[in-house]
């Protein structure tokens, strides 16, 4: 086999050095017709088979081989780096709003910088810097928020004036600019050559690379990958990595058991020009003009400029191979508006001669974030695709995370926002994808303000009460395809339309939500919470209890009818899920988890529960409508409807009972509210939903009942210092770090997942601490509102970031929740965070570059909240999700 590596290597090097490969404009036809026999036959088996020889596949191969895995085969249907990778613009940009994306881009940049030295393959790496322009004040705010994030990462960046922009790039028309962000270390690369360099290094490390080999499908047996069928024979393997880019969806569906990878390609155009009279310097910074929807980089003395138009052209990959995708037509009329924007930004380019309009398809995903991770249905089936046109920026980091995932079982960072399991089959409809990507592609450049929502692919999953609530003024948002109410617009009040309500400041619904919160505190509100994931776990014997005791940190061996809040932890004690579990009987449990846990939690249970036909797990999410009755009068409403005493003596907090409400029988009533306020959640078999809702609303009238939405819930839970999974809690956060030690029963008499890690933390202390901040000198009406991801400064030094925030109508202040770390002043090493450390600091929260004083608290304001009905109520209900 060693000889083959050499041959392959020389092949790659030959092509890397060949001028044709360095020129992006060179049509693929030239290289692919160079008939070349397949060098060697495929191996019969390998540990890992990677499908796709673009930047993702080669990066995964590179990182796997770096981590010591050698038995790896990479298959490419055409030629290496000849798909989207070949045609992409080669811009490495770190100015990303999301932390994990920013980290991936930062890592990629560092990796590419040294790649040429490492492999000897020219990558064209050039540190040019980048300038992102703002034409509006709102855009500048979003850039300032990014600058705050970059700064705390140690990535140099600067908010600059239009004048400075002109100094950095003489061609830019600055008349309509209000400012810009300059990131001096952003770079340009030849993306195809980066990919070839990664392939070369991987090959040197033992990875076998086979070009012109198509994967027809992946074979899966008993929920595990067993092999790969290709047009050149079968390879047995343990792991399969789908890095097929725009073909990933199709490939995922090619097997008997489909793996849903929700992405859809769109045509993407960029322009190449001949050099200017005085050729542009190759060190000239890349320009991004999001308000004009374009990017512009220097390219061989001329420019390369593309963008994200408002009317994208989705593209079906079915039945089309690499070559056909490469021969997509130029569409000048489609590119017209972007050309307008280009010439408006750089009027001096009018006389520049066109070389080519490149049509380079890009894959987009339903939420604009890439897709990585293991399939929920097939173990060993990994995916890395759907880069939303940032493949080069993410390539290095994403490949590293996925390699870590395969080798270590989980990456070194929280990648839940990118996890394939955030999607279900429902996002896999071609129609949904086609509609959604048409919204996503323009969104690449649209201004994203707090709480923006997707507008396409909506009204898919709804509660049976949808129409009733909608008729009463409900405004909707979507989570995991489920429509949820944000708030109710009272009749007669006029809210701004969608476009005008976009703001970084106080939103127009402020008073509406305020009155809903007030009603929750003083009377009673009803919130439809049907979207939450609901499982039932039961067994013939004690299997259910025993298994769950192992999977959950709290003690579930409680009397029947009790509800337990508990984390579902991993080995490291981190939250895989955060749930409420009701013991329905000795042998059956009802488990409520966040909405977007539907796939992840199911997979986790399936992978960790023993294979036992007597142990049954059922997803009953769709069976129940959940109504949350919040407020001091909830007890009155419910007792009138059920003719049963609902007082604390008869129905204590954290209790679950099946009872009748109105005419409907078998309503599962739980005394939890997800907010810390008194009240109940009613789990109603869906056919009774309308009846029960009507009864509750009629009976509630005399108690002042009204509808409320999630924004009210959110304000309530944040002022109560409730963390929720997916926002505040993730797989890298333990109960010890967020003040939930009381939900961990280290001595419950049996082993459970994460127990050891938690023991250690209990002994040695924690390295971060969930903290509540009350903004002191923040003017709600005039100042920018916090969102999440704002840096936290302690005594002027960066200590962490916020994870969520809300306005507390009770405190009349903004409350931010976030994690405080303790970095050693000299070494930067993470130290144990003690209560004293938290309490003895002066804190500031940085909102888009402006710092606000904040008071840190480790415990909620108990005095503010009345009606404590059980001694441990507040503590025990320290559970929240959104």
């Amino acid at each position: 086999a060693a000889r083959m590596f050499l041959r392959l290597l020389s092949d790659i090097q030959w092509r890397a050095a060949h001028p044709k490969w360095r020129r992006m404009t060179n049509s693929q036809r030239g290289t692919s017709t160079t008939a070349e026999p397949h060098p060697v036959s495929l191996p019969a088996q390998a540990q890992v088979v990677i499908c796709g020889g673009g930047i993702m596949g080669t990066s995964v191969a590179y990182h796997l081989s770096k981590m010591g895995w050698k038995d790896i085969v990479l298959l490419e249907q055409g030629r290496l780096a000849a798909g989207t990778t070949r045609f992409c613009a080669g811009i490495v940009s770190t100015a990303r709003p999301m932390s994990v994306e920013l980290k991936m881009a930062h890592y990629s940049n560092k990796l590419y910088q040294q790649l040429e030295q490492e492999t000897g393959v020219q990558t064209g790496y050039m540190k040019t810097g980048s300038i992102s322009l703002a034409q509006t004040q709102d855009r500048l705010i979003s850039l300032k928020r990014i600058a705050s994030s970059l700064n705390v990462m140690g990535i140099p960046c600067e908010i600059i004036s239009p004048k400075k922009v002109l100094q950095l790039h003489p061609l830019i028309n600055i008349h309509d600019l209000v400012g810009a962000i300059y990131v001096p270390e952003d770079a340009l690369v030849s993306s195809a050559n980066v990919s070839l360099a990664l392939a070369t290094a991987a090959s040197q490390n033992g990875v076998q690379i086979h070009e012109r080999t198509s994967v027809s499908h992946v074979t899966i047996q008993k929920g595990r990958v067993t092999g790969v069928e290709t047009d050149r024979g079968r390879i047995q393997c343990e792991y399969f990595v789908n890095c097929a880019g725009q073909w990933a969806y199709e490939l995922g569906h090619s097997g008997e058991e489909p793996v849903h990878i929700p992405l859809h390609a769109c045509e993407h155009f960029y322009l190449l020009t001949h050099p200017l009279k005085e050729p542009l310097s190759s060190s000239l910074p890349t320009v991004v003009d999001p308000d004009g929807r374009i990017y512009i980089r220097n390219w061989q003395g001329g420019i390369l400029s593309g963008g994200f138009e408002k009317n994208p052209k989705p593209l079906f990959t079915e039945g089309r191979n690499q070559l056909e995708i490469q021969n997509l037509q130029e569409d000048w009329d489609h590119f017209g508006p972007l050309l307008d924007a280009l010439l408006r930004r750089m009027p001096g380019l009018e006389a520049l001669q066109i070389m080519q309009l490149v049509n380079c398809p890009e894959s987009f995903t339903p939420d604009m974030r890439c897709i990585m991770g293991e399939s929920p249905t097939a173990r060993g089936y990994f995916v890395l695709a759907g880069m939303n046109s940032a493949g080069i920026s993410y390539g290095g980091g994403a490949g590293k995370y996925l390699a870590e995932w395969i080798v270590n079982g989980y990456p070194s960072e929280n990648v839940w926002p990118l996890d394939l399991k955030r999607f279900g089959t429902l996002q896999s409809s071609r129609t949904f994808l086609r509609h959604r990507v048409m919204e996503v592609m323009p969104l690449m450049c649209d201004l994203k303000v707090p709480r923006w929502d997707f507008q396409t692919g909506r009204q898919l999953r709804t509660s049976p009460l949808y129409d009733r609530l909608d008729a009463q003024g409900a405004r909707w948002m979507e989570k995991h395809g489920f429509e949820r109410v944000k708030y109710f617009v009272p009749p007669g009040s006029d809210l701004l339309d969608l476009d005008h309500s976009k703001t970084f400041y106080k939103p127009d619904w402020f008073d509406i939500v305020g009155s809903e919160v007030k009603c929750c505190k003083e009377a009673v509100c009803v919130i439809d919470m049907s979207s939450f994931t609901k499982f039932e776990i039961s067994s013939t014997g004690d299997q259910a209890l025993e298994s769950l005791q192992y999977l959950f940190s709290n003690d579930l061996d409680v009397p029947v009818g009790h509800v337990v809040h508990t984390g579902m932890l991993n080995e490291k004690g981190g939250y895989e899920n955060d749930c409420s579990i009701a013991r329905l009987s000795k042998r059956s449990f009802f488990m409520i988890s966040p909405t977007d846990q539907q796939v992840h939690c199911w997979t986790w249970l399936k992978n960790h529960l023993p294979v036992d036909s007597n142990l049954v797990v059922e997803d009953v999410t769709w069976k129940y409508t959940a109504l949350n009755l919040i407020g001091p009068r909830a007890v009155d409403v419910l007792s009138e409807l059920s003719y049963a005493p609902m007082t604390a003596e008869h129905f204590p907090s954290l209790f679950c009972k099946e009872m009748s409400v109105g005419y409907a029988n078998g309503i599962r009533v739980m005394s939890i509210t997800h907010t810390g306020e008194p009240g109940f959640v009613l789990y109603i078999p869906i056919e009774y939903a309308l009846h029960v809702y009507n009864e509750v609303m009629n009976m509630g009238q005399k108690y002042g009942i009204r509808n409320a939405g999630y924004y009210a819930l959110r304000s309530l839970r944040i002022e109560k210092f409730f963390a929720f999974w997916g926002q505040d809690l993730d797989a890298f956060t333990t109960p010890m770090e967020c003040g939930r030690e009381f939900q961990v029963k280290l001595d419950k008499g049996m082993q459970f997942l994460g127990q050891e890690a938690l023991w250690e933390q209990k002994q040695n202390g924690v390295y971060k601490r969930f903290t509540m901040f009350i903004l002191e000198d923040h003017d709600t009406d005039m100042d920018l509102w916090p969102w999440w991801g704002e840096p936290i400064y302690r005594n002027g030094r960066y200590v962490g970031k916020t994870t969520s925030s809300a306005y507390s109508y009770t405190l009349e202040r903004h409350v931010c929740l976030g994690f405080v770390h303790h970095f050693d002043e000299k070494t930067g090493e993470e130290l144990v965070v003690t209560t004293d450390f938290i309490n003895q600091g002066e804190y500031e929260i940085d909102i888009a570059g402006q710092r606000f004083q904040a008071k840190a608290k480790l415990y909620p304001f108990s005095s503010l909240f009345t009606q404590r009905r059980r001694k441990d109520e507040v503590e025990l209900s320290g559970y929240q999700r959104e």
Partner: protein
Amino acid sequence: FYLTPSQVNSILKANEYSFKVPEFDGKNVSSVLGFDSNQLPANAPIEDRRSAATCLQTRGMLLGVFDGHAGCACAQAVSERLFYYIAVSLLPHETLLEIENAVESGRALLPILQWHKHPNDYFSKEASKLYFNSLRTYWQELIDLNSGETTDVREALINAFKRLDNDISLEAQVGDPNSFLNYLVLRVAFSGATACVAHVDGVDLHIANTGDSRAMLGVQEEDGSWSAVNLSYDHNAQNEHEVERVKMEHPKSEEKSLVKQDRLLGLLMPFRAFGDVKFKWSIELQKRVIESGPDQLNDNEYTKFIPPNYHTPPYLTAEPEVIHHKLRPQDKFLVLATDGLWETMHRQDVARIVGEYLTGVHHQQPIAVGGYKVTLGQMHGLLTERRARISSVFEDQNAATHLIRHAVGNNEFGTVDHERLSKMLSLPEELARMYRDDITIIVVQFNSHVIGAY
């Protein structure tokens, strides 16, 4: 100096006319949905004419474009009279008798034609009596000739053309006591006109063509694209058969002088035409008529001028070439237009532009830069024009207007260039004819459902 888009539009739309065939019981039983027509002058006054009428005593619809030369008198006369000659030629014997009896006894006449006219399409009141008498003489002869056979459309068209031309010639020879009319008939005879006439009756489409106007059928292919089918042959020097015909009709000695510089006797572009007695009468007859004619005629150098090598008249005929076409569902429209259109546009482009206009679907040819040297600025301008072109489709409510907009305003990329359009339309009268010819267009839209049901 530029015309604003709205000024351009007011010029382009000044002569537009649309006719929709009325529906009965919510159904249109005619194979014709309707037609759009328009004309844009280059000469002042314009020498083109157009006519459209529905035959009332027989079935069918008549549409025609007439391109005059050496003045507009002949084209005007033909546009007024030809359809009556055709309609009469098509009438059955009984109807002719009925009409003749009505005239004889002073009763109201059965209406023969329903005209579809733009307000600018005038009929000369003064000559109506004269024209009517000639027409009556024609139908009286038809009554006398009664062959008992059903009328063949082809023959009727040929007879009508020839008869009208003959009448024009005779009227000029006989003259009229009214000096205005006398001068008029002479002007008609000494000027000329080509004619391209369509007769549509159900799926039977007949095109009778004399001269170099043209009829073109727009066909929609299965893939939705548009192609053009010619339904007439140009009678000019480019048509070999036509050159052959002329040569056959004259002695070999004249072979070289017959067609010079692509013109008949080195003078006339069309090889067939109405009027133009200078190419039809003997020299003696011409001289006699001119001498006895009014002074205006005598003063006109052109009329006095005898063509060189004029040995064996007539050199010119008004006899049309008739093409019959059975309409198919894919035949979506017919374009009749004078040579002013065909000089500037290829029939394939005409088919596409009208087809896309009528269906509202725009198969714009994609732009490919290929190996051309194009700057960003040029491309920007081009794309802006193409966008304007799409919006210009919605500006026009008339297919003929849309076609004229393209014919006059198209740049090398096939896009309407407002600047160019503005320039072409604002040319002073004396220059206009140098850059463009009169353009007259009729676009007839067919009813595929009716045609498919035949």
